[in-house]
């Protein structure tokens, strides 16, 4: 637990040999949703292709955000430290699909009409929160490199806590846009709630433990 090294991360346990090939495989796998969407649109299977692209890139952004948030609980659960080495890629793919989603809206839905876009962001709560989410993701994507990690030291971890509001805003964005049937956004919300609850419970447990360790005398008195 105690990390005497200057690195913000715990010392790397012996990384498995398959990590490199696994990363390459996941890198390609994460592009499959895009390839599938491109195929569906190119082959004329989507009656409303722009709506389809918007929804597809949007839900994949949320999916990759949830995958990113699943990595550290999964590591704790399995004890496989190398899982953390995959987290950056998941987060960057969330941003990648998020940027495609935003670009679809700005270009294919609004045709870069700045007035209409600005009005949407101010007037439509679901666009406000969605826009806020992608804006907040940007510094996380920029500072995802080893260099930035070293430069920001402890602040890197603090900054990257932004992923929690980003995920909440993303799910809210989906929830507020559906007309009536919230079953899909509810699914994302449930998974996010479980992932956030796990962190809260763990934090409370740690704080309680620290209190016990810090003040044994007062407890005894």
């Amino acid at each position, binding site marked *: 637990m105690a990390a005497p090294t200057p690195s913000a991360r715990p010392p790397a346990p012996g990384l498995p040999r398959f990590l490199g090939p696994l990363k390459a495989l996941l890198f390609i796998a994460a592009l499959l949703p895009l390839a599938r969407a491109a195929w569906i649109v190119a082959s004329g299977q989507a*009656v*409303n292709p*722009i*709506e389809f692209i918007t929804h597809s890139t949007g839900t994949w952004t949320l999916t990759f955000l949830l995958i990113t948030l699943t990595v550290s609980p999964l590591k704790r659960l399995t004890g496989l430290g190398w899982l953390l080495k995959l987290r950056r890629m998941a987060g960057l793919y969330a941003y990648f699909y998020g940027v495609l989603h935003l670009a679809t809206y700005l270009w294919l*839905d609004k*045709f870069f009409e700045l007035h*209409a876009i600005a*009005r*949407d962001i101010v007037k*439509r*709560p*679901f666009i406000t929160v969605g826009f806020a989410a992608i804006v907040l993701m940007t510094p996380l994507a920029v500072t995802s490199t080893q260099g930035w990690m070293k430069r920001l030291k402890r602040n890197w971890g603090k900054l990257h806590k932004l992923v929690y509001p980003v995920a909440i805003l993303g799910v809210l964005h989906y929830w*507020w*846009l559906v*007309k*009536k*049937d919230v*079953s899909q956004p509810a699914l994302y919300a449930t998974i996010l709630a479980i992932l956030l609850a796990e962190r809260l419970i763990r934090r409370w447990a740690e704080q309680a433990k620290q209190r016990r360790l810090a003040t044994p005398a007062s407890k005894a008195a």
Partner: protein
Amino acid sequence: MLIKRPDDILPSEITPQDLYLDRRRFLLLGAAGAAGLALSGNAFAALAAKKSLLSTGERMNTLKEITGYNNFYEFGTDKGDPAEYSGQFKPRPWAVTVDGDVLKPRTFSIEQLMKLAPLEERIYRLRCVEGWSMVIPWIGFPLSALLKQVEPTGKAKYVAFQSVLRPSEMPGQRDDVLAWPYREGLRLDEAMHPLAILAVGLYGNVLPNQNGAPIRLIVPWKYGFKGIKSIVRITLTDKQPPTSWNLANAHEYGFYSNVNPEVDHPRWSQATERRIGDFFKRKTLMFNGYADQVAGLYRGMDLRKNF
């Protein structure tokens, strides 16, 4: 030319049931469904219909678009669900009861309804409240022709419509997404307007299940959800009837729901729309482009309040 049958064959000379059961067409329909491709109205027209001066000359959407992208929550909330899950639905035999403030309440079979008035092809714009639109060649007859048959009394001010309730054939009705059965309503003068029709066909054929078989309402100057599908009951009343989307969210869906580019949906703009098949969006027209014909119905009304 959509319909190859000569115009002198009246719908009354056709036995819809025979056509409905016609095995050759059944096979063709199956083949078309399997190919997922447009079933051209040309070769196997099942419904004869007169052309109408009320039709638009705009480019029509393909049968594939019209039958593959539907909001029909009785079969599921995804646009592809109605095409995928409406196969078990049985649109025959069918009856529609017309009652309430009328002198001659009556139940009509679908066969009687299809002979009630000469069938017409009405090529209308359809604007969905979600911001997309299509051009669809409906086949039907004026709603007024049916209402005249039952003779509304002086008390009748509104017309209430109700869809069929069949959770066993309509999987979407097993979820409480909306309060089933689906309900819609019109003011009597709106219902009597010549543009308002009951559609029984599409692209020269009987109405596919996913488009509201066997009979549905089309009110082209209103958002699409006003066009209630698979109708089983029409009731004339003196009070404004409850309507499904208004019950679900009164703040977002009003009783009138006339297409109006100046009155936004609380969550999105209604100023523009995407015509299915187009890359660029287009401006939405007042009353969906039917203002010349219908604006008079709403003279003196505040359309922001009566949205």
